[in-house]
């Protein structure tokens, strides 16, 4: 049984249809990436999974259970945690407070210290800035904070929406390295990226989304080698 399963999922913004029958699965332990052009529906897919946008039709299963009508805040309790597009760092909270927000639903408050240490060992920069307001961090630091904060929920499924967006190259490489590390430590990852080259080379499997539909699926390596993908997403003529 896959950890996450979307079957023919549609979603709308008012009358605008953003998702037109998305079908995809994520198995426990995988890194799965979703690539596609701007406006293809990647962010909407993430929002539908985390519950801040409703599903208009189709099936949404997490760990075998239908979560379509489960409130978004309760999906966090179930083990779905998201680092949103644009990072969503709380500007008026310190780095520590932001990380603590990630653990908002956790009952095992005693073990938070260990998880904080884990986040700080993944992102030593955050440890240095722990009392600084989130809004004063650089873009790369905010991205680290958003990922670290999502990890503080101890998720079973980590959703990352364009973690490399707007970052300098040395930060991008670092972020992708850390995603692999997080996955090796046992967290399943669904990664949305426009940086297809890096994303595909780090992913077990990948999906290509175009105007609200999945148009291609395969292993990361297969899609990397696909000529059509090369032309459309990897900037190779």
């Amino acid at each position, binding site marked *: 049984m896959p950890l996450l399963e979307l079957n023919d999922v549609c979603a709308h913004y008012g009358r605008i249809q953003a998702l037109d029958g998305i079908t995809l699965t994520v198995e426990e332990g995988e890194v799965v990436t979703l690539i596609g052009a701007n406006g293809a529906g990647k962010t909407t897919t993430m929002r539908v999974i985390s519950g801040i946008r409703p599903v208009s039709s189709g099936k949404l299963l997490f760990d075998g259970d239908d979560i379509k009508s489960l409130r978004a805040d309760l999906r966090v309790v179930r083990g779905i945690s998201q680092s949103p597009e644009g990072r*969503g760092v709380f500007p008026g909270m310190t780095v520590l407070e932001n990380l603590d*927000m990630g653990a908002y639903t956790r009952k095992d408050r005693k073990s938070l210290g260990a998880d904080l240490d884990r986040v700080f060992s993944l992102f030593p920069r955050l440890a240095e800035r722990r009392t600084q307001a989130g809004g004063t961090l650089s873009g790369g630091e905010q991205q680290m904070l958003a990922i670290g904060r999502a990890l503080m929920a101890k998720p079973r499924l980590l959703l990352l929406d364009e973690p490399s967006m707007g970052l300098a190259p040395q930060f991008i490489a670092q972020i992708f390295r850390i995603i692999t590390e997080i996955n090796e430590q046992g967290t399943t990852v669904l990664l949305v990226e426009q940086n297809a080259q890096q994303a595909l080379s780090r992913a077990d499997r990948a999906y290509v989304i175009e105007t609200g539909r999945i148009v291609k699926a395969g292993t990361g390596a297969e899609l990397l080698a696909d000529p059509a993908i090369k032309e459309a997403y990897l900037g190779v003529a």
Partner: protein
Amino acid sequence: MPVISTIVLAQGPDWIQFDVEAFVSQFWSNTIDGLAYGSIYALVAMGYTMVYGVLQLINFAHSEVFIVGAYAVFFVLSALGFGPSAPNLSVAALVGDLVLAMLVAMLVSGLVAVALERVAYRPLRRRNAPRLAFLITAIGASFAIQYALFAWRGANPEPAVIMFRPKPVFEIFGATIDSQQLVIFGAAIVLMIITDMFVNRTRLGRGLRAVAQDPDTATLMGVNKERVIVLTFLIGGILAGAAALFYVMKVPAGVQFNGGFILGIKAFAAAVLGGIGNIRGALLGGLLLGVIGNYGQTLLGNAQWTDVVAFVVLVGILMIRPTGILGESLGRARV
């Protein structure tokens, strides 16, 4: 004392006169009394500022949440035998009665605020209504509660309930601080500190700040936004209920169907002055507005000037600092 006792503006209209001598001689007593009034504005301002911080909604009906609390104070104290002359009670018995009246008022105002959210605002939120619809609804709810009170109690103010006769406690710069001013100022500060600590130090308070800064991301953290909204209205209502006790203490015959209107506008102005969405700003704005109103009244020699001066200063400050003195801190960064 200053040489010039009364300056008449050389070219100005003769209905404006500056009584500098009175301003100077009453400076400290005006300051102290202004702080007591300002504490009441500040407590009511908290409700405006917190709801605005979380929902970007100006809850115009908050003045009625407050006045309903004042009715609760009136009824509780009347039932306990208070009336137009100060009762002859031991300090312990008096404190007990006042605390009871305050708790009932907090409960009543808190419930009215939550009911208002449920009945008036939540249905609009469910439908993703535009901001203007919320504003109109807020004004409508304000009138609805006012005229419900009017229909129930009529146009006249309720008979005065005197809680105690203020006694001088100590002097500062030659001005007397009386027991009433001390009670109001002290209790208001304690309540504001508790609220500030709740918002900044507790898990639920942090959830509230998260919703104010970024509602969608707060939801992604597992914060139940609807619960936070109810909590916000509840806290605002509770503080307005406490303010109601102090208001009746200072204005014993002020319990009237439209008695919340002016005070509500001033409290809202106080919230804007301090920086709407900012809890400490509400305190600062409230105290400033109370003090400035008193200064203006003395300087211009007529109580009718109190509000005019307060608002002129408000506009002046907003021209220099458009987001208020402390800025919007509960709120998100806006474009």
